[in-house]
Structure formats: C-alpha cells, structure tokens
C-alpha cells in the first residue's frame, strides 16, 4: 500500500480525473463482461471470481497493508455467509420481503462485530503470535460448529431459495446474471471503500505497524488498536464476500469456514501480490480460473497451486502484480529492446522447465493416484505413457535443464530489477 500513498500528489482537477480513470475502466469492464461471456456457466464463473476477489482484497488489508498473517480469515467469510443465510431464512419464514442486494450488508455487519471481538483477542501482538491465535480461533470455531447443527447444518449445510425475499431493483434473482449484478456492485463498493481506507490516517498507521510496530508506539499510537481496527475491517469485507458466495450458491456449509478456505485466500492474495492494491484481485482471478479450468483437466491442480505458491515465495514475493509492474517499469524505461535477449531466454527456459514439471507431475499422478486409468496419457498434446522410460526422461530433462538454466538468468533479472528501481528514483 506504500505505493499508492507514495505517488499521490496534492489534488487538483486534472489529477482527480486521472485518479478516477482506473475506476471508470473497471466499471466499464464489469458492465461489458457478462455481455461477452453470456452463457450461464461463464456468468457463474464470473460470480465466483467476483466473490473471491472481494475476499482476497479483504485479506490483503491484513497481509499486505498491516503485515499480519492471518491463518483463520476463512472464518469470517463463512460466518458472514451463515449470517446472511439465516437472515434470509428468518425473513422468508416471517413472510417479509427485503431487497436481496442488501443482504451482504447484514452479513458484513455481523462479521464486523465478530471481527471486533476476534481482533480484541488476536491483536495483542503481531507476527507469529498473531498467526497462532488466528489459527487457534479458526480451529475453535470450526470444531465448535459441529456442535451446533441447527446453525451450521451438519453434512448437508444450510440452504435457501434466494427468490424467497421477493423482487427488487427490477430483478427477481432467479437468473445467475442477477446475482452477477449484485456481486459487481458490491465489488465496486468494497474495492472503493478499501482503497479509500488505505489512504486515510488509519490506513497510513497500518502500514507503519507493518513496518515498525514498536516505533508507532513512540509516536503516540497504540499498535494494538491499529491491528484490531484493521482486523475488524478485514473481517467485515470478508463477511460481505461470504454473503455473496451464499447468494450465488444458495447454500452454506462449514467447509466455507474451514482450513481449505483459509489456505485458498492466502494463496490467492499472496500469488496475486500483496504490495499493490489490485494484486489480490489478479490473484483471485488467476487462481480462481485455474481452479475451475484445471480441476476438470488434471487431478494435479492443487499441486500446481502449491508449487506456484512456493515459486512466488522464493522468487518474486511481490507476486504476479509485482511481475506486471516490473514489466511496465521496463517498458517505461525504454530498454525493452536491449533486454529482449535476456527476457527471451528466460521465457524459453521457463517454458521448458514448466513443460518438464507438468509432464513429471501428470505422469506421477497417473502412475500413482489414477493408476486405474491406465498408463497412456496425453500431456500438453504429447502422447506419453507412465510405463515408458522415455516419457519420464523427457520430463526430467526438461524440468532439470530448465531449472538449472533459470538460476543464473533469474539472478540477472534480479540485477535488472534492482537497477530499474534505482533508475526510477534517481
């Protein structure tokens, strides 16, 4: 978030216009998307990506902005969803009609209250203790949920009919695209609110707590109070995301509060990039699409997530957004031509390494987990077989060769990135 506060000069009419441009572009994109991808399943995908994007943005308030690693953020996603679900069920039972688009406000508000409570428990320290408390709280809530089937459902979860609250805003909420509209509007609201927040004094303080929690105390502020407020805000937006997910699928289960959800949002946010505001959105889109597409094609999709995560942790902690911004910086510096050979080599070596890794993993999955499907398998268009030594050797050589070639190239890239950032500020 330090990037956004850095490059905001004093406001004038001209700069206000340029600041508004990205938001206009995003709104326009949101309007155009369902027209381009109009089939029901595609809109369903967009809905999923939208809720995940909001979820990831909320997580980055903690991770990127305040430097807090929460291992239990899924709890608020789930709790928000359950609050929304029960709100709908109770209103439907009472025969009340209520505008469905306002339901996430209820879920978000409930999550906000719970977030204050959780924040009060968790915010005493940062770093490891914080991670541990959030883990403990999440496990506690998840384990306790099994004791209350009337709230959390048991195996089947809690379901509802989103049309039960009646029509409003010209929609009856039967078609998937109606939900898309709700999600798109809430995305704009949440993204706008969080962006605004990042530039408020409290937003500045969260960055300070991230950088040096001790020093902020010596400037008159309570780091604990800052963490608690950030936690509550993040919880609230996660609750909104959970409510939207509930509206989308018309069902809520304890799994939405479970370890997998907590892990998923961490993956999305970190891979997308914690150092730029829209990084998490990028991560949510990429991981979300991978999840939907890859899970059909290959049993190894979770493995790919894990490896991608490790790759980002080890090589580019600023994530995909960081890579994107580096690319833009390179374009601006005008030295793309000079660097083209290096970039080309990296692209080539990377592609070969990736191909090799994919081959090895697909072969391994077929040889192990899916052995019953037989040894023949088509990987990346190549006919391979788990029984054939050639297939394995091919994978090994590509992966090994690619990785070995990448090491020095990545070091060169690092130096380039370094000199670019120096060049920017000189």
């Amino acid at each position, binding site marked *: 978030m330090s990037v956004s506060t850095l490059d905001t000069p004093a406001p004038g009419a001209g700069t206000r216009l340029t600041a508004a441009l990205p938001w206009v572009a995003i709104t326009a994109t949101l309007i155009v998307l369902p027209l381009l991808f109009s089939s029901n399943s595609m809109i369903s995908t967009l809905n999923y990506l939208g809720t995940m994007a909001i979820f990831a943005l909320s997580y980055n308030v903690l991770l990127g902005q305040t430097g807090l690693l929460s291992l239990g953020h899924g709890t608020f996603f789930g709790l928000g969803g359950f609050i929304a679900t029960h709100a709908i069920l109770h209103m439907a039972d009472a025969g009340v009609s209520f505008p469905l688009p306002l339901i996430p406000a209820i879920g978000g508000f409930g999550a906000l209250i719970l977030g204050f409570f959780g924040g009060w428990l968790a915010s005493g320290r940062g770093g490891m203790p914080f991670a541990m408390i959030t883990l*403990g709280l999440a496990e506690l809530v998840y384990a306790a949920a099994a*004791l*209350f089937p009337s709230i959390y459902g048991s195996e089947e979860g809690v379901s509802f009919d989103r049309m039960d609250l009646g029509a409003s805003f010209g929609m009856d909420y039967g078609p998937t695209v109606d939900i898309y509209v709700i999600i798109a509007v809430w995305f704009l609201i949440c993204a706008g609110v969080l962006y605004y927040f990042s530039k408020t004094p409290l937003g500045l303080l969260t960055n300070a707590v991230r950088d040096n929690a001790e020093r902020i105390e010596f400037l008159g502020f309570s780091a604990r109070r800052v963490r608690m407020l950030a936690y509550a805000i993040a919880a609230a937006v996660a609750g909104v995301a959970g409510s939207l997910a509930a509206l989308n699928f018309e069902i809520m289960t304890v799994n939405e509060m479970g370890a997998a959800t907590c892990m998923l949002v961490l993956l999305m946010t970190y891979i997308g990039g914690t150092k730029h505001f829209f990084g998490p959105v990028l991560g949510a889109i990429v991981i979300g699409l991978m999840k939907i597409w890859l899970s059909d094609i290959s049993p190894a999709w979770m493995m790919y997530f894990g*490896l991608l995560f490790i790759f980002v942790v080890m090589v580019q902690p600023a994530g995909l957004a960081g890579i994107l911004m580096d690319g833009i910086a390179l374009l601006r510096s005008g030295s793309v031509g000079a660097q083209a050979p290096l970039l080309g080599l990296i692209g080539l070596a990377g592609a070969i390494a990736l191909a090799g890794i994919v081959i090895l993993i697909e072969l391994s999955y077929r040889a192990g*987990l899916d052995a019953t499907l037989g040894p023949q398998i088509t990987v990346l268009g190549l006919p391979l077989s788990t029984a054939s030594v050639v297939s394995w050797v091919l994978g090994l050589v590509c992966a090994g060769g690619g990785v070995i070639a990448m090491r020095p190239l990545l070091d060169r890239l690092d130096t380039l990135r370094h000199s670019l950032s120096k060049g920017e500020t000189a």
Partner: protein
Amino acid sequence: MSAEVITFSLLNGTLYGMLLFLLASGLTLIFSMMGVLNFAHASFFMLGAYFGYEISKIVGFFPALILAPVLVGLFGALIERYGLRRVHKFGHLGELLFTIGVAFVIEEAIQMIWGRSPMDYQVPEALNFTAFEIFGTGYPAFRLFMLIMSVAIFAGLALLLTRTRVGLIVKASLTHPEMVSMLGHDVPLVFMSVFGVGSALAGVAGVIGGPILITQPSMAAALGPILFVIVVVGGLGSLTGAFIASLLVGFIQTFAVAIDLSVADVFGLIGITQPPAALGALVSDIWNVSVSQVGPVIPYLLLVVMLIFRPMGLIGKRA
C-alpha cells in the same frame, strides 16, 4: 467412569502425550533455530509414516524404524539447504510462508503417489501380542514399545544436547550463530543438521505412530494444529514446556473421548429430561453436546486462553 477406563485412559494418554512430545521437541528445536514455526513439521511426520509403511513391506518393521527417519531427515536437510535458506532474506514471514507451501505440496505429493485411501500399515508381528493385563483387558505390547521408544529418544536427545560437544555447539549456534561461526564452526551446517534431525524425529514418530493413528494423507492436517497448540501453550522454545503441554493435551484428548457425558446427562441428574422447546433449536443443540464431542475443541480453547493471559506459555522465554 470406572477404574478400568481411568487406568487405560492414563496409559493411552501418556502414550499419546509422549508421541506428541516426540513431534513437539523437533518443532521446538527448529523454532529455536529459525525463530519461525515449521508448518511442514507434521508433514514430515506423515512422510515418516508412509516411508515406514513402504520400507517395512520390503525389509520389515525394525529396519524401517532406522531407514525411514534417516530418509525423512535427509529430505528435511535438503529442504533447508535449497529452499529455506533462500527465503531467509525475506524475513520470518517469507520463511513461514515457505513452510506452509512445503506442507501443502507434501500433502499433495503423498496423495499423488499413494492415493487418498488409508494405508494398511499393520503393527509388526513381533510386537503383536498382549504385554500385560489390567482389569481383565490386555494392553498391547506395541503401545508399550511406542512409549519406551519415545522416552528413549527423548533421553538420548537430552543427553546429546547437554553432555556432548556437538550439543554444546548446537545450543550455542541457536542463540549466537555469528560468534560460533567466528570460532570456526560451520554454522550453516549446524542449522541444516538441526533441521534434518528435527525432521527425522518427526519421521520416527510417524514410523511408530503410523500403525496406531491411521496412515492417510490427512494425518498431517489433523495433527498439525494440535502441535502448534502444544508448542505455544508450553512456551515457544522451551523443551520442558513442550513436554508438559504434550502430556496435558494427550490426557485431555484421551479422557475427553472416554468420558461419555453430555449436557443432557448433567441436567438428567437433577431430573430435567428435555430442554424447554420454546428456547429453540440452539438450546437443544447444546443439550445434546457431550464431552467427547467437545474434546477436539478443548486444546484450541486452551491455546486462545493461554495466548491472551500468558502469551509466553507455561515455561516460555519469549512470547
């Protein structure tokens, strides 16, 4: 609750606690070194179980008891050397995230190789008899063996750290790596070895725990959070604290399962058999809650309470 149940719960609780301690001690050592909790520690436990299973199929249980932990230890050392060391420059958060990633990938890899169903990891024939009888029920020799192994390993570790020169160097490197390096010792090697040995300890726990706890891909995810409860409650960095906390958690979980008491039973004692219907479904949920259901929740309650009131843990030096 009969004397029989109490006795068996005590035995099983101690056993479970010692197994947990075997895991927690490795985790504590690694934490003392890295300053970061190794999220992949339970995964090394799982690797130990799977390796133990495979190797004992080929050469028998007792050779597996040696070989499997060695393999896991080597794997751990490699992870430290080529992975963890690289992310050191990104600080504690980077290291933590790396270990999370490793845990994730190991779990996937195990499913990839062995599939998702539990493995038929049997208690070895040589130990498949009744050691003694209490109250007419036999106590399995294998469990006794597990207990003895855990105690022996712990004793060996304690001796190594306190009585040998190697132990001295390790302890010094944990707190003053630069100074130890100035004295001519290869500190990176020490770190790699500590990580390897810690992982091997987890592996041993896996080899002997595998036949009792079910060997399946979710065993790491089931045990992992409990492990963190133990090291945090015991006090990060304290082996004694981990010992106490391990036994505590072991007893809690074992006794909770044994106690077949529900809220309804308690109210039944004073003659109330049904909750008032007017109070709704929630109350009837609570009505049916039994202690054995609450069992899984208790360690986490303990964790949260400890973190609020005594963040340095029972015997911790730093919070």
